């Protein structure tokens, strides 16, 4: 217990003991100086008094012990709770947090966050701030990316945290606020995995049901073309029907892949090698265009645990997206380096960039800005990186280009 807290305990104890017989007993020894001291009656009285004083002292000590025990019990409850708890003063100042709170945010000590204020936390919506001050209990969930937070943390990667903020009352006035935090990242992951498994089964059934009619439509169209169609408009129509059938097939296949992402074998993977392979392949591909693919890939990066084919798919997709954002050509830079023991990869382009509105939706399945896109590319990439316990984030500015930042945990951090 710190000196500060000890003083607090003493103070509270003083309050409790005020008005007890000890306080009343104090003036009594003065009476002992009255004339007639030494008489048997006085001696008996003094003895009685001393006895009762000892009794009272004992009682007080017992009360103190009980109080200390109660405080210890509450402290244990506070410290051992799996729910993170923080107590804030009425002005929002952070007063105390428990062990779970530090663990959830990956903090080494309370000292790292003493400056945090409940009300200057910009991520708390204004309306909620008002409601808390009015004495309401509010609850919300927030997504964290621990690779990108404004405090010092030992955690990395994405996390989902539930906040419950409740006012603390004494005699119907608010004397502070309690913030409870629960880390539901693992639960969410398990739910997501279950959801994907269900989706996978559904999609597999759907693929069978839909692909047969698609085969009939495309087959009839192709057969008609094979038999010879004179009218060019009719021929075009058949070709469009064919193309659209195969686009639909492509969407179904991608969805099936999307739902099967988590069920692949993972091994130690050398990211620089994978990136080199893709860069060389795409350099060849961009050969006839005005797109210049540059690389700044460090060779001695730690291995990551992953599926090489899926990771190849991710970077192929991200680099191709960059190229698609530069219809009139430009530069793409693929950078890879070590960062805090993780592997950090950046794909930076000098393309058109994205608006904030677009940026907020890029990982949504079926969201696309391309004319012929399926809207599944980045959704798949995002899920693959998440399945590798990594993060994929995009930074973009309209007219200035876009940067994709991928962070993959190095082998020793994954606990395999």
């Amino acid at each position: 217990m710190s000196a500060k807290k000890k003083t607090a305990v003493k103070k509270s104890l003083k309050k409790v003991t005020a008005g007890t017989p000890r306080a009343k007993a104090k003036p009594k020894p003065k009476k002992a100086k009255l004339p007639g001291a030494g008489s048997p009656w006085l001696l008996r009285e003094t003895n009685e008094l001393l006895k009762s004083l000892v009794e009272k002292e004992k009682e007080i000590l017992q009360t103190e012990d009980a109080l200390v025990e109660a405080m210890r019990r509450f402290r244990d409850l506070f410290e051992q709770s799996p729910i993170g708890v923080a107590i804030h003063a009425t002005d929002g100042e952070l007063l105390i947090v428990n062990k779970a709170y530090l663990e959830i945010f990956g903090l080494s000590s309370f000292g790292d966050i003493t400056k945090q204020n409940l009300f200057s936390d910009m991520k708390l919506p204004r309306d909620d701030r008002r409601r808390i001050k009015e004495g309401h209990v509010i609850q919300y969930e927030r997504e964290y990316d621990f690779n990108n937070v404004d405090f010092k943390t030992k955690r990395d990667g994405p996390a989902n945290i539930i906040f419950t903020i409740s006012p603390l009352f004494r005699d119907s006035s608010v004397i502070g606020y309690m913030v409870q935090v629960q880390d539901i990242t693992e639960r969410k992951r398990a739910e997501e995995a279950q959801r994907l498994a269900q989706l996978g089964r559904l999609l597999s059934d759907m693929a069978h049901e839909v692909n047969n009619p698609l085969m009939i439509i495309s087959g009839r169209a192709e057969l008609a073309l094979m038999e010879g169609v004179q009218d060019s408009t009719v021929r075009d129509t058949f070709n469009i029907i064919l193309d659209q059938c195969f686009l639909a097939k492509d969407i179904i296949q991608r969805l099936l892949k999307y739902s099967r992402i988590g069920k692949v074998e993972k091994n130690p993977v050398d990211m620089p090698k994978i990136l080199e392979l893709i860069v060389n392949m795409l350099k060849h591909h961009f050969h006839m265009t005005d797109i210049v693919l540059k690389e700044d890939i460090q060779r001695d990066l730690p291995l990551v645990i992953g599926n090489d084919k899926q990771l190849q798919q991710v970077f192929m997709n991200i680099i191709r997206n960059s190229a698609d954002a530069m219809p009139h050509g430009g530069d793409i830079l693929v950078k890879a380096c070590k960062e805090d023991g993780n592997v950090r990869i950046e794909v930076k382009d000098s393309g058109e960039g994205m608006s904030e509105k677009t940026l907020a939706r890029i990982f949504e399945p079926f969201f696309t800005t391309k004319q012929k896109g399926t809207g599944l590319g980045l959704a798949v990439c995002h899920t693959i990186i998440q399945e590798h316990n990594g993060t994929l984030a995009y930074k973009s500015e309209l007219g200035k280009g876009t940067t994709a930042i991928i962070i993959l945990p190095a082998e020793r951090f994954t606990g395999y």
Partner: protein
Amino acid sequence: MTGKTAKRILVVDDEQHIADIIEKFLVLHGFLAHKAYGGTQALEVLSEEHGFDLIILDEKMPCMSGTAFRKKMEDMNMKTPVIVLTGSIGMLALCEDNKAVFKNLMIKPVRLSELLGVINKLI
């Protein structure tokens, strides 16, 4: 195909429209095509008629799956090459035994021109 005997191909698909399309397409390209609307019917055809050069087989059929049909063929020691058509490779991938068939596996909808390429490679 000119001058030579036309190659004989058996098309097995429970979806009649698909079997019809593939049959028509095969005939158009000079093959002799036979149809069977299911595994049991296909086995009957195979027991009556011999000398098929190729089988084009649907995987998902109600009474007998493509995989079950190929197992029967194996039991009957039939070595006719097979092209498997399927709506999704998900189910096939679950069976290790199917690894051998993957090289001749096509996912529906299949471009008939691509199917022709695979047929020509096999026979």
